């Protein structure tokens, strides 16, 4: 190597990933566990967050929520606020996903130091959110029974980078032709050994197993 050759070896990131890693540093600095929650519209993202809040509120766990929506509505964030937790509504202005700079902006409005768990409810969509890192510690997808058992085959990308899969609305299994084996086989090909929790936000079935996974990751009480 000539003396004019300078060795660098630095990771080249796109602007979104760069801000995502700054977001991660903020989560770590405030000792906040963070989740990017993705699903199609109506899969039960808000219901799942509410079920989690209700289960943990008595233990004094502080949960902050960032609600992403394409329209300027506050329906979901109002529900979170009614449950007694801080929520920020982010209007993506028609965009079909949240990106890292939007999260950065929302973090400025949250008392992050007091928050043990931050949940980002991404825009209801199975395609675009998969391509944008937000900087969260984990990525979770909610699939729901009425969507059908072929979704892993049709939307493979969102299943690839996941840490946890929630299968919601299992109370509807008796009414819907949903082949659980076929569904889980499709997931297994894309993401072998993926941690999966079948739940019902309506009856509460399965929620305890999810909470066991989650509470292990929450910071020891601040």
């Amino acid at each position, binding site marked *: 190597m000539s003396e004019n*050759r*300078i060795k660098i070896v630095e990771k080249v*990131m796109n602007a979104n990933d760069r801000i995502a890693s700054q977001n991660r540093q903020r989560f770590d600095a405030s000792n906040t566990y963070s989740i990017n929650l993705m699903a199609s519209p109506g899969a039960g993202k808000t219901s799942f967050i509410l079920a989690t809040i209700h289960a943990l509120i008595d233990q004094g766990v502080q949960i902050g929520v960032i609600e992403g929506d394409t329209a300027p509505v506050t329906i979901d964030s109002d529900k979170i606020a009614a449950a007694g937790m801080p929520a920020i509504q982010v209007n993506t202005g028609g965009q079909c996903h949240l990106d890292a700079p939007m999260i950065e902006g929302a973090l400025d409005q949250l008392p992050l130091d007091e928050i043990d768990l931050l949940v980002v409810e991404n825009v209801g969509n199975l395609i675009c959110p998969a*391509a944008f890192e937000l900087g969260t510690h984990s990525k979770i997808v909610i699939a729901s029974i009425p969507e059908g058992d072929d979704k892993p085959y049709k939307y493979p990308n969102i299943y690839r980078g996941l840490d946890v899969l929630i299968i919601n609305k299992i109370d509807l299994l008796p009414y819907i032709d949903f082949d659980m084996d076929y569904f889980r086989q499709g997931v297994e*090909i894309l993401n*072998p050994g993926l941690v999966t929790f079948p739940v019902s936000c309506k009856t509460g079935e399965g929620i305890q197993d999810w909470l066991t996974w989650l509470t292990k990751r929450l910071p020891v009480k601040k």
Partner: protein
Amino acid sequence: MHELSVTESVLEIACKHAEKAQAKKVTDIYLVIGRLSSIVDDSVSFYWEMISKNTVCEDAKLHFKRIPAKLLCLQCSHEYILDDELTPCPNCGSARVKVISGNEFNLDSIEIQR
């Protein structure tokens, strides 16, 4: 899809190191890209010409080095190197494989004039 912002990032890193080395000019930039990275060389080069104008990196030549991906079979624990497209495990034929490396995109080094 992210090529412009990735190219901006290349420029930023290269300029930072050129300045630190008190370079008059950067002549060559060496990039290392994993086989599974979705980065398209041509479109990086396209943006590069536009955005490097009037910087210490103007006219610097981009060199792309593709490195193979490494996969691990979750069925039989066989580790194998991938030069082309994603293929099942050559040992047992299983499709349950995990990517160990192959998504990287690094600025490896730069060549400068002082």
